[in-house]
């Protein structure tokens, strides 16, 4: 029987991944990549009090704005996803239109950690979350 998480994220079927938290809607993938487990990070909706976005970053659903968010925390663009001593990497995902959809943070062992929407956190390989969700 296919697990619900694998139905929602088909690329996980057959992948080596590990669930590392309980389900929660308290925070999302952007927050988790930024090390925050209390807020739901997303831009561009002044009518939605349930979302947080750093005040100094443009309120835009663009990769540029999402890169800028992580720049406020000391991250800078890099060339690849290979682990490097002394650096923590974050990967940003976007849909075909270039709208950001997800973020994952690299672990010291080279694998990645992601919060999946309102579901669990998982440890996975970077491309396990590629494709349509």
């Amino acid at each position: 029987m296919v697990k619900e998480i694998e139905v929602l994220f088909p690329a996980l079927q057959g992948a080596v991944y590990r669930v590392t938290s309980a389900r929660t809607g308290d925070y999302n993938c952007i927050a988790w990549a930024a090390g925050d487990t209390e807020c739901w990070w997303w831009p561009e909706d002044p009518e939605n009090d349930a979302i947080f976005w750093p005040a100094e970053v443009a309120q835009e659903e663009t990769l540029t704005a999402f890169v800028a968010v992580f720049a406020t925390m000391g991250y800078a663009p890099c060339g690849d996803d290979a682990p490097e001593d002394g650096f923590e990497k974050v990967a940003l995902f976007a849909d075909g239109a270039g709208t950001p959809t997800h973020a994952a943070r690299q672990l010291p062992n080279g694998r990645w950690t992601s919060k999946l929407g309102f579901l669990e956190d998982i440890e996975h390989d970077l491309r396990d979350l590629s494709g349509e969700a």
Partner: protein
Amino acid sequence: MTPLPAPSAVEPLERQVVRLLGQWRAETAHLSSATRVTGHPAYQELIALGSAALPFLFRDLERTRDGHLAKALGLIPGAHPVSPEERGKVRKVADAWLRWAGENGYQW
């Protein structure tokens, strides 16, 4: 034989709210985008139900502490009880709304 009455085409409001909340949560569980979460048709239907739906939304909010209902709650009564310090903190947002509901005489 007495014919059975025709089924009512009107769904009771509470059942409608529960159904829409269930659909919304099931179909947005995988999403991180708040735009897509609150733009979901079931969420928009909840907003369209108006103030009569508020007691049922507060009942759900008390049970789930799902602050993602904040946008719907804010648009229905036009109130914004969430402080700048609480903004984005999903559970604190839920608590702020439950406080506001109590202070404004809502029962659920």
